[in-house]
């Protein structure tokens, strides 16, 4: 049997900002339909990885392909078209302050003139029900919403173009445990109902264990040896506990471990 080609394919990806290398030689392939959770400490390059997938950041070396096409080789028009195949849920939702909830959700459709007004309205109301928000929020501005509501509006906006892949940046950060689980359920429902491929960047082990089919753990480069791989773990969430790498086990248990000593040493100069 021939293996299906990956929908998202990162090969030997390196991203550098000035003299600082954030990602080094990272290769990850995500088949269509898979839900991948990328975990790791702050500063290990998770968000950079996500933004590189959608072409918001350019790789310094290596390739990023979506459905066999690299962003770097596309014209402006094709980049725009390619991006409509993604949904992106930002850490703080990144809703447009000057627009109402309805305008925010409809923005991608209006921007790409994707359908007539009646269809747009229908899609919006259906998605609003999907993410569990009442119609009364439509006329509100983002500043009037709670954190959980903003995230759900962000998810509705990400789904309105019926994307093939959804990228989530810290979807549960800043939410209470119950709202975090609501978001987890919504991500699972989105995956099942819309059959999307998902990449979730998170610190939240509950999200990684509950939602993901596969977990990749990245590690900050400044604490790795030059020849070490930046990916410390790549496998199903059920195998996380069996990992023999102390850095992985410390992270998944949320233990400071050696890190506290390292920080004390850094502070002492």
């Amino acid at each position, binding site marked *: 049997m021939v293996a299906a080609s990956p929908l998202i394919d990162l090969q030997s990806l390196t991203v550098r900002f000035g003299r600082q290398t954030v990602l080094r030689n990272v290769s990850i392939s995500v088949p269509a339909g898979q839900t991948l959770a990328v975990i790791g400490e702050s500063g290990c390059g998770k968000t950079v990885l996500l933004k590189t997938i959608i072409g918001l950041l350019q790789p310094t070396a290596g390739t990023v392909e979506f459905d066999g096409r690299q962003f770097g080789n596309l014209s402006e028009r094709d980049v725009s078209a*390619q*991006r409509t195949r993604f949904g*992106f849920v*930002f850490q703080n939702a*990144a*809703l447009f302050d000057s627009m109402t909830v309805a305008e925010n959700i409809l923005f991608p459709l209006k921007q*790409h003139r994707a359908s007539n007004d009646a269809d747009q309205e229908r899609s919006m109301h259906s998605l609003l029900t999907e993410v569990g928000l009442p119609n009364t929020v439509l006329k509100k501005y983002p500043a009037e919403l709670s954190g959980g509501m903003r995230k759900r509006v962000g998810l509705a906006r990400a789904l309105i173009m019926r994307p093939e892949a959804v990228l989530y940046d810290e979807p549960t950060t800043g939410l209470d445990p119950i709202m975090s689980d609501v978001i987890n359920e919504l991500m699972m429902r989105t995956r099942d109902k819309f059959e999307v491929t998902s990449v979730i960047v998170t610190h939240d082990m509950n999200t990684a264990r509950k939602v993901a089919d596969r977990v990749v753990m990245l590690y900050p480069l400044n604490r790795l040896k030059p020849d070490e791989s930046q990916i410390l773990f790549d496998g199903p969430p059920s195998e996380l506990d069996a990992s023999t790498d102390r850095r992985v086990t410390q992270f998944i248990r949320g233990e400071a471990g050696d890190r506290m000593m390292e920080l004390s040493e850094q502070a002492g100069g």
Partner: protein
Amino acid sequence: MSTGSSYPNERTTGGPLWRISEGIADFGAVVIRMIEGLGDMTLFAWSAILWMFSRLPRRDTLINNMYAIGVQSLPVVAIIGAFTGMVLAVQSYTQFRNFGLETQLGGVINKSMFRELGPVLAATMLAGRVGSAMAAELGTMRVTEQIDALSAMGANPIHYLVVPRFLSCLLLIPSLTIMAIFMGVVGGAFYCVQFLGIDYHHYSTNSQRFVENWDLFYGVAKSVVFGAVIGIISCYRGFNCLPGAEGVGRAATTAFVYSFVSIIILDLLLSIVLDHIYLAIWPVAPSLFGG
């Protein structure tokens, strides 16, 4: 007291030659950063101009920006224009009266308003009221990832955010300038006639004698350049905002400072160029003092 023990590395890193070379290196780094910044802003401006011609912005975004930039700036520009005209009258009156030329005051006030103060005042107001607000707004959008969200949804942030603001500055600054000039002329005439007792007929005749259509073109031409520069600098500072509240504040401040410095420098350059053009077309200019 020996200083040698306090600065153990002075011999290797603190000698006079080393300090001079460090100073030159620092200066060089600043110059390189400035050139890089200027190049980056030029590319940014070029991209905005290309987008402006390739696809018009959405009408609702353009109208919203035009309302904020043009209509909401009108009252303050009118007030400042009127008072500037009156201040010019107060400042010039004594000098002109000593020569018995007080009826010529209108010529000076109007010429100054048309050529210099009208465009510079309108541009300064635009930079202060609108430019810094645009930088802060776009800076906040950058910090809160709203600009990234636009890109992620397949919209081009320069087309969506910069082009309407740039076009609004470019198209509406001439109206603001004309309003500043008009109110300056009215304010100056009002003060001269009502408070300084200058005969209105002579004031009006002399005013008309020295102001030509060229002066109006002169002021408006300057204002268009100022408007373009304010639009680009303010949007650029917002787009390249550093993280956090401090970054947004700094973007707003630097947008105004850079715009104002650019206005003053460009004012001199444009004055020289426009005067040369005038003299090339009309070699004999009318003089305030006869001839």
